[in-house]
């Protein structure tokens, strides 16, 4: 399972990181608390959040996450896009709410840590 498989199966738009869609997905994590993600998500996890501000790009980069899905029709800030792009982070957006995103990821076989 890689990020491309997720993009192909869920109604998500690729905002940044087109070149990194081959990132393998090792599991999933959902949280809006950044230190919780830092401490609990595993490397290669796909992260579902409602946060759209620029600090999510640093978290994903430093924690070595496969991709971020910004759920609930939250629009990422322009700075977020810029940072995610420069760090090579895959940023996906969707109108689906978090619960629905996680459910669909689970259906694809992606599990929590």
């Amino acid at each position, binding site marked *: 399972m890689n990020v491309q498989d997720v993009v192909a199966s869920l109604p998500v738009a690729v905002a940044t990181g087109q070149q990194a869609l081959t990132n393998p997905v090792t599991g999933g994590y959902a949280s809006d608390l950044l*230190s919780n993600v830092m*401490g609990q998500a595993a490397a290669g996890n796909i992260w579902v959040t409602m946060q759209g501000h620029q600090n999510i790009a*640093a978290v994903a980069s430093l*924690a070595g996450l496969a991709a971020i899905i910004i759920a609930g029709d939250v629009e990422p800030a322009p700075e977020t896009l810029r940072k995610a792009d420069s760090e090579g982070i895959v940023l996906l957006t969707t109108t689906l709410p978090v619960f629905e995103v996680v459910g669909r990821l689970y259906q694809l076989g992606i599990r929590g840590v």
Partner: protein
Amino acid sequence: MFCTKKGYAVVRERCCAMEDEQTIVLEFTLKGSDFNAAGETSSKIKKVLQQIGVKSDIIRRIAISSYEAEMNVIIHAYQGKVRATIYPDRTELVVEDEGPGIADIGLAMQEGYSTAPDHVREMGFGAGMGLPNMARCSDKFDIQSAVEEGTKITMTIFHNA
């Protein structure tokens, strides 16, 4: 100042110097409440570690430790300094700030305890996980703090752990 280590071009800005052949020192300054720059110091440290070929799971632990300490300065302090000393076998991080200090370190080390203001919590910071994450990701962890003066955190992560 500039710094290269036998073919590895590393961070040039702010400050970085070589103490000897096998040691890289990176120094950064942090400004309180500068959320725009949040994470940049840790990203730079991470890039240098990648350049010198430290294992990715070790880099991840160093990056998380550094990021949490960096964020603590940005969230709570007026200003601070990060010094990363990269030895062949370990990385030492010293993060020192001028700020309010921590009155009860035992309490601050508890998961979920936070004194972060609401506007910071709305961004998803202030979960009360920063110090516990640092302690968990580092092999050696030390915190010294004086109220109304500041806090100094020293962490060591071994490269072959």
